[in-house]
Each structure stands twice: as structure tokens, then as C-alpha cells.
């Protein structure tokens, strides 16, 4: 087994193990929350999805800048890979958040600042991925998507700070280990690291796919590429 495969396997094993322990703590060890009862356990997959999405889009932003600066295809591949994985986590964030909202807030959706900016983030990165599909010329695709990727990243810090900047809507203010019972923190940490390891594994695989596609494209005749 070569080094890359060894790292992939290690990350997958790490993610699976942490997910197993995380699920056990989230569903069995952590006590019910004082007001939300059992339903709050959804937060153990909702919050790590949010953190993973924000990290993924930040990596995309950094890779977009790196591409415009150095014009290296590897940076473009990294941006594409991280955006797709981030989009997955963002979709899971919105879905789990909506399911959590129904029993706790009484609605599936509310145009609250945090929810609205998160939805904008999802559709912006869906558009980013769509743009990459529409542009067939590799250099134009990389340049245009890098510019778009930098522009839409503006929404990412807005999502993070929205509950502070725009006042409290239905979404709660951020919690910290200082404001949360230690019994609840362990499960969240385990799941957060599990999602981070999964992000790393997904990113490595998706990056390899993007690089293979670049190699495949470079071997095609120009007439096919620009058609």
C-alpha cells in the first residue's frame, strides 16, 4: 500500500471510530437537555456539519486566491474539491437544522438571519459548482470560478457572525464550553473531530478525482475541450 492510500485508510478508520464513539455519547451517554429534552441530540450532527461546511468553504477561498496568484492547476482542483464537500456539509446542516426547528420552534423554516445567510451560502456554492460544469475551457473555468469563489466567500463570515451582528432571531447565540455542561461537550467534541476527519478523507478523494479529470482533459484534443 502506498503512502497516499495509507493516509486515506487511516483517515477513514479514524473518522469511523470517532463517529461510533460520537454516536454512542450523543445518543446514549449525554443527558437530556433541560428544556429541549431529547430533541437537542440533533445538534450533535447539526453543529459539526456547520463547522465542517465553514472550514471547507474557507479552504476553497484560500485555494481560489492561490490559483489567481500562482495559476497552479492543483489549487483549482483543491478549490473544486473543497467546495463540493462543503456543499454536502452545508446541505446536511440545512436539513438537520430544519428537522431540529420543527419540534423546538414549531416551524420547519424561518427567515431568521442565521438561516437565511446559511441558505444563501448553500445556493451560492451550488452556483459555483454549476459554473464549473458550464465552462468547458479549463483555464477560463479555473479563473472565473476563482473570482466567483472569492466573491461568494463574503457570505461565510456573515453566516458565522449573523447571530451577533443582526440580533437574535430564532437561532440561538453561539455556546462555548464555558456556557455548556461538560456532560454535553464531550459528545460534541467527538462528533466535531469525526466530521473533521471525514472532511479530510472526502477532500483527499475528491482532490484526486479533480486532478485525474484535469489530466484527462489535458489529453483531449483542443476542439473537444472548447466545444
Amino acid at each position, binding site marked *: 500500500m502506498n503512502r497516499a492510500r495509507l493516509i486515506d485508510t487511516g483517515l477513514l478508520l479514524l473518522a469511523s471510530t470517532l463517529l461510533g464513539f460520537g454516536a454512542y455519547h450523543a445518543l446514549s451517554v449525554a443527558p437530556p437537555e433541560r428544556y429541549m*429534552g431529547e430533541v437537542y441530540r440533533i445538534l450533535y450532527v447539526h453543529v459539526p456539519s456547520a463547522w465542517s461546511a465553514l472550514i471547507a468553504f474557507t479552504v476553497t477561498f484560500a485555494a481560489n486566491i492561490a490559483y489567481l496568484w500562482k495559476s497552479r492547476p492543483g489549487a483549482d482542483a483543491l478549490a473544486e474539491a473543497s467546495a463540493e464537500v462543503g456543499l454536502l456539509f452545508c446541505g446536511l446542516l440545512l436539513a438537520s437544522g430544519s*428537522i431540529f426547528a420543527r419540534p*423546538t420552534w414549531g416551524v420547519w423554516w424561518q427567515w431568521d438571519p442565521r438561516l437565511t445567510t446559511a441558505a444563501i451560502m448553500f445556493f451560492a456554492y451550488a452556483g459555483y459548482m454549476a459554473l464549473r460544469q458550464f465552462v468547458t475551457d479549463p483555464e477560463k473555468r479555473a479563473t472565473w470560478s476563482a473570482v466567483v469563489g472569492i466573491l461568494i466567500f463574503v457570505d461565510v463570515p456573515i453566516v458565522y457572525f449573523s447571530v451577533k451582528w443582526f440580533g437574535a432571531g430564532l437561532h440561538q447565540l453561539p455556546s462555548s464550553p464555558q456556557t455548556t455542561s461538560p456532560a454535553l461537550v464531550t459528545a460534541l467534541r467527538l462528533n466535531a473531530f469525526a466530521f473533521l476527519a471525514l472532511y479530510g478523507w472526502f477532500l483527499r478523494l475528491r482532490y484526486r478525482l479533480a486532478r485525474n479529470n484535469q489530466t484527462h482533459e489535458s489529453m483531449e484534443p483542443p476542439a473537444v475541450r472548447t466545444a
Partner: protein
Amino acid sequence: MNMDGVLVGGTEYIVAAYAIVWGGLFAYGISLMFRVKKSEQEKAS
């Protein structure tokens, strides 16, 4: 909700959320492995 204002029940929401999140992650991981394998076969041929 009980007399103390505490939400009770809601297991169906927990099951739905975990099924969507874990199912989504699992499905994406499997599809990604197949996509990478296919691209490596195309690269080799």
C-alpha cells in the same frame, strides 16, 4: 411539552436527522470512491 415546559418525545425527529446526515455522508463517501476508481481507470487506459 410537559408541565415544566420541557419538550418530551421527538424520537422521530432525531431518527430523521441522523438518518439524513449519516445516510448523506455514507452515500457521498461510497459514490466518491466509485468516481475516483472510474477516473483512475480512465487515466490508466
